[in-house]
């Protein structure tokens, strides 16, 4: 479980996050939603320690991340897997070498065992026979899946996904969403997905946090999301025609 307590972050005069408190539960897909520029990616980066918040704490199973020494932080980070919006695969390494990278840096065992583990992770995300290709030689959807394989290589306790299906076609996006949900159940991870894709929210969201103007505006389940009377939240979720159609159908069925 990850708990955020009173977290605030600013860049110069720009206050990006204000007093955010939230609980992200283990074994669930926790989603942070909000408009572009609302601060959700900054919140994630504060949680994984890429940004230091001015105020507040992030607790990993009760341990405050920002109060830890470097060694303890390194230990926590080895329990984190992260899928980036851009996939962030290393250009100079092959697909297999990318997935083996965290294993080579931190895992014990022979080269062959690491290769086996990396191949297992690639199989798990349905990437087969691409071991020797470089990231630039595979599609965006495949890059995301390789990114997921790399994120799960060390069997993480915490899985962060920053806009995992941005730039993907709807079918591939659903595949990625399903994969994240399956892996969350399989590894019992605390999964945090940053997204503004309502399809993704409706497919996999279990604990949803809505960030608006740098503040936590709303938190609840998928069912509560659809029944919410929060104006800003409704403006966000019903911005697209598809969701408006869903709402009309629901209202008509009442």
């Amino acid at each position: 479980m990850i708990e955020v307590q009173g977290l605030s972050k600013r860049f110069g005069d720009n206050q990006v996050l204000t007093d955010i408190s939230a609980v992200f539960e283990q074994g669930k897909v926790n989603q942070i939603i909000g408009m572009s520029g609302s601060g959700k990616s900054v919140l994630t980066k504060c949680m994984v320690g890429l940004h230091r918040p001015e105020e507040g704490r992030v607790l990993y199973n009760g341990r405050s991340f920002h109060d830890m020494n470097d060694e303890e932080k390194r230990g926590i980070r080895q329990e984190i897997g992260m899928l980036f919006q851009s996939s962030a695969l290393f250009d100079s390494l092959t697909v297999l070498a990318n997935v083996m990278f965290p294993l080579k840096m931190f895992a014990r065992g022979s080269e062959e065992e690491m290769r086996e583990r990396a191949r297992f992770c690639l199989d798990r995300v349905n990437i087969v026979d691409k071991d020797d290709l470089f990231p630039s030689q595979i599609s965006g959807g495949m890059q995301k899946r390789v990114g997921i394989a790399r994120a799960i290589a060390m069997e993480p306790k915490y899985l962060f996904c920053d806009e995992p299906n941005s730039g993907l076609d709807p079918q591939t996006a659903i595949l990625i969403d399903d994969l994240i949900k399956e892996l969350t159940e399989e590894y019992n991870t605390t999964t945090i997905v940053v997204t503004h894709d309502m399809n993704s929210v409706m497919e996999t969201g279990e604990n949803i946090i809505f960030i608006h103007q740098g503040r936590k505006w709303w938190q609840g389940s998928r069912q509560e999301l659809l029944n919410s009377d929060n104006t800003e939240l409704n403006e966000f979720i019903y911005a697209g025609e598809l969701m408006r159609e869903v709402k009309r159908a629901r209202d008509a069925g009442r």
Partner: protein
Amino acid sequence: MRILFHFGRYFLLLKDVFGRPERFRIYWRRTLEEMDLLGVQSLGIVALLSAFMGAVITIQTKTNIDSPLIQAWVVGFATRQSVILEFSPTVISLILAGKVGSNIAAEIGSMRVKEQIDALDIMGVNSAGYLILPKLAATILINPFLVMISMFLGIFGGWLAGVQAGVISSDDFILGIQTGFKPFHVTYALIKTVVFAFIITTISAYQGYFTRGGTREVGISSTRAVVYSNVVILLANLVLTRVLLL
């Protein structure tokens, strides 16, 4: 005040660079790769420049000191001194700041804007150490060899051009390069080379590591890496010459 901010951040980056490596074997393998990329692949340009510059130094020296009062071997002497003391360590380092420095800044800057450095940090890898230390070790180890090759080729180019153009006999040139030779001058040149390698690598890496934005900013970082490296090399050259030769 801005310059103090950069000084502070540069030294904090250096502290991280010399942090404990996660896996020494991986760092060593990366150092060997960087020695090839940053050193061996610079051999061609270093060889070409050295041979031609040595040739030009010889011919220009001869045309400027063409006097019956000055002995012929002085041309070889001047060529040797110019090449060993200044051309090979300093001019080649300035050239390498352009080639290697821009490469380092662009590579690390691209990794920054593509979130690959964030990925390393989140994995718990000391990204500064992993990315910069092997490059630093590689340039510090390989640049002295490049400069020694440059010294040899510079003097050889001078001999070849001088003899071929008929401005000096082979015997006079060889007498000149042997006359008044001080081995410390080679040591001095190699000390300068190592210091310049440190400057090129760390300043370029600093520019790349703290790149913010996109591809345009990567280009700006590369340009800054070359300009700042060159300026600091020139300053360090003056200081080292003052300290080591006077």
